[in-house]
Every structure is written in C-alpha cells, then in structure tokens.
C-alpha cells in the first residue's frame, strides 16, 4: 500500500512542480549555423561566453558544462558528437578526424607507447571513458 501511494504521489508532485515552472525551453536548433571551433563571446556577452570553444581551459571544463547545459550543447551538436568519444567506437577519434587537428581529440600520435605513461600519471583520466565501457582495446592486452 505504501509503495502504491509513493508511486501515485511522486508523479503528482512532479507534475505540480513542472506546472509552476516559468522558464522557456532552450531552442532546439541554434538560430545561426556555427562552423568549426566557435567563440561564443562573439554574439553572447553573458553566461554563454564561458562556452568559448577556443579558450585554453574549455576542453578540461566541457564535462561540467555538458551536465549544466546539455540542451545548449545540443543546439549545435548532434548526439553522435558525444558518442564519437564517449561510446564504444573502435577507431581513435584522432584517427577518425585526422583532418581536424585543432580539436582536442584524445590519444594523438603513437598512443600505444604513451598510454603506459599517461596511465601512471593519471589513471582516472583513462577510467572516465574506459573504466566500465569502451574497453575492448584495453582487454586485448589487459585480460
């Protein structure tokens, strides 16, 4: 009985809270097509200026922005843009997009040798993408 009450009450509370919201949803598609590494500051002097893709620290901070404003990312980026790196893909992103050297794509150059060093320096950086998934290549040697 208690479970049924919870199951009925939670959606009701959520519906009431949603009905009280006053924000207008972010547009689905960016009004102007953006090509390449965008500098959002060119049009947005406000909060969105932080999303300047050419800023030195943007790559390290993008995971925080993605959780805060996922829908804002989606106005320009297809879901496949995330899955190119954050899903099992087999081809290194830096190989698949060798013609985009300006992008901060992981594992550039000879990564077979370098991964042993990077793995010692900061294994958590590896684990973010390979800890629980996207790890077939790891399992080839690390059985």
């Amino acid at each position, binding site marked *: 009985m208690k479970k049924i009450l919870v199951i009925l009450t939670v959606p009701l509370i*959520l519906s009431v*809270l*949603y009905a*009280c*919201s006053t*924000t207008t*949803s*972010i547009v*689905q598609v960016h009004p102007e097509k953006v090509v*390449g*590494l965008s500098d959002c500051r060119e049009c947005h002097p406000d*909060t969105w*200026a*932080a999303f300047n893709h*050419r*800023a*030195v*620290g943007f790559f390290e901070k993008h*995971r*925080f922005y*993605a*959780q805060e404003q996922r*829908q804002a990312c989606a106005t320009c980026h*297809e*879901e496949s843009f*995330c*899955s190119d790196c954050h*899903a*099992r*893909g*087999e*081809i290194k992103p830096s*190989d698949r997009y*060798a*013609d985009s*050297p*300006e992008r901060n794509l992981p594992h550039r*150059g*000879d990564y*077979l*040798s*370098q991964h042993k*060093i990077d793995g*010692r*320096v*900061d*294994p*958590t950086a*590896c*684990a973010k993408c390979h*800890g*629980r*998934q*996207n*790890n*077939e290549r*790891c*399992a080839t*040697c*690390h059985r």
Partner: protein
Amino acid sequence: MNIYDTKGRRRPVGLLVRLWACIIALCPLSAAVPAMAGGITLSGESTTIFRIRESIDKKDIYPAYEFLRLSATSLDKAGSLSFYFGGWGRADLGDRSTDKYRDGDLQYGYLSYRAPKGNLVVNLGRQFVAEGVATERLDGVYLRSDFAAGFGAALFAGAPVVTEPNTKGGEFIYGGRITHNMPRYYTIGVSALKSDQNGERYREEEGIDIWLHPLKQIDAVGRSSYNSITSGWMEHDYKLTWNPLDNLSINATYSDINYKDYFFHMTTNVFSLISPSNPTGLIDPNEKVRTVGGSIAYTPIKSVTVAGDYKNYTYEIAGDANYYGGKATFFLPASFVAGFAMHRMDGTTDTLRYSEYRIFVSKKIEHLDITADFFDVNYDRRINGVRNSYTVIGAASYEITPRLRIGADLDYSRNPDYDNEVAGLVKLTYAFDIRRSAEGEGK
C-alpha cells in the same frame, strides 16, 4: 546490452536485435506524447571508412567500417518529439580466421520528448546521461525539468551499458540530481546514483557540483564525489577561469583523487584494485594524487592565441611530477589553422621524464582541405631501445557536393612498439537533412 549464459560468460546480442529492442521499448512513449502536427525534420550521416594497418600482434588488417547516425524530429507548439540513432559495424576484408573479424555496436538509440516550457526532457532508450556523479550510458529512462524559484531536477534509471566486462557492471542503475540556479550567477547541484548486483550494493555515489559566474570575468566549475560503500571521497575537481581583459585568460585547477574510492568496482581489469583476494590487481588502493595547475592565455589579435601552462602532480606513493610548457595557435575560421606546442614532463621516475612537441597546419582551398600533423615524444631514457617516438600524419579531403565528401589520410610512426608503422584510412561521408511541412511538402 549483453546476456550471460549459465557459466557467466557474455553472449553478445546482435546489433539488429538491440535496435529492435529499443524501438519496441520506445513505442509506449510515442503513444503517450501528444501527436505532433508540425513539420518533420530528418537528418542523417553515413561515414564509410576503409583502413589499412597492422594489428598489435603484427598482422596486416583491412577493416571496413560503417558509422551511421539518423535523427527524426517532429516540432510544433506542443514541443518536439525526436528519435535519435547512432551505431557502427565493422568487417575485416582480409583476415576472417577468428570470430572477431566483424563487430558492431549501437551507440545510442532513443526517443526524446522536449516541452516548450521548463526545459522538460523525457528520453527513453539507449542514451548517455551526464548528471552530477553520473556519467553513464544506459538502456532506460531519463527525465529532467526546471521547476519554480530556480529549482530543477533530473531522474534516470536503467541497465548500464557495459561493453566488455571482466565483471558485470551492475544489473540496474538509478539516480538523480537536484539543482538550484540563478541564471546570472550560479548553478549548484546535489546528485546521487545507486546500482545493485545480485542483491548487493554495487555502486553508491553522492556528489555536489557548482557552476559559478558571479561576474562576467569569472567562471568556476567543480564537483566533489563521495563513495558511500567505501566511505571515502572519490574526487574533488575544481577549475577557475578569470578573464581580467577580453584577450587575457588566467586559469587555475585543483583536483584530489583517492584511488581506493575512485576505482571501486570498475569493470576493466586494468583498473582492478590490489587486495588480498586480488593480489594481481594493478591499482594500489593506498595511492592518492593531488593535482594543482594553472595556465595563462593571451590573444593579442583575434586569430592568434599564445598560452603557457603548468601542472603539478603529488602522489602519496609514487612521488611528484611536473608538467609544463606552452602553445600557440593561429586560427582563421573555415579557412586556416596552425599550431605549435611544446611540453616537458619532469617526474621522479625515468618513465615520467620526457619532452613532447606538436606542430600542425590545416588549410582549406575551395573544396579541398589539406592537413599535416607532427607529434613527437622524446624520452630521457630509451624505451625498447627507442628514445624518440614520433608520428607524422597527412590528410586530405574533398567536398564533391555539399552533402558528399571523400577523404584520406596516411600516417607514419616510429615508436617503442613499432619500428616503422604505416597506416592509411579512406572515408566517404554522406550527410542529408530533409525538412517536410505538416502537409508533407518538402521545404
């Protein structure tokens, strides 16, 4: 999505079966959402890739890949209903001697409803969830919305997508995040996730995250995550940017990670913790690393940026390491980009003492794009007799039509694992975007 036989061995489920499972799972949601009277947009991209390279065990392999993404969106005043699909398949055109000569994966496949008010999103299917402590791919449901007075919430539940487990990744995962924000100043969130396996606690993580921008010149993000099963902080990770001038940026970073808590129940063997029951584990649970760093970037003219950066790693067991250097980039949108970077790693062990260099240039000439990229690592101590490891990449692509592009790249490496490695790649990309009005007329 995997199934297991009675001996606990993984049996892969076929790509088509996975796709159909998602489509069937999505049917109830499509019926629940109001019918869309507006136009429909269909878009997609097919990338066919043919590679020539040498495998780790020195065999020549010729894999052919097909990466496909599709999306369909119906948009009107009641919101939008979309279906997203992304996946790939691979077959080796040369070596078919093992059952691994072909493979594939459904990267995502979900139905999504977005309301015009409150940033309400309902997703159902295989998706990537990023909410506080959760950065997960799952087969399940995701719901988020803004509420009144700056509050918002997100919920998710489903089966974790674990692609090649040494152990299972939990049978079911669920969690959520509650946020409060003042759009001009901050967003602060608290989040949690929980996963069970065989009736036992598998993962329990809680966290707090912030995004502060009290002034136009300041932007700070960060997160602290706590592991309730090991009763320890997994990670503190904070980054601050201060822009005193429009063309000057100063960044500071701080992170603190406890391996015992962070690597708890990873499914990849390489991250297994050493313990009495697992003496062959690779990660020392007593290790901790604190990273403090900073960078300064200056943009004297719009197209040029020069930057210097520094990072110090302090390990509980392994000693210290310092990583520092600089880079410069020249960038003309959709026309030309060039860059140079030079960094030095100074650690207390021989393998953590090396210098790395990178030079790249990419030029667009009408429909042709040409790229050259050079990456070099110079180790202080030889590894497998090699001190200097480098890769040279040349790439070119040509836009046949606005929708169709062909490209190829060739790279050469000399490194501790390969005396001379040559690899090539040819790719053909076809993209389309079709918009139809409610009456079915193309626009």
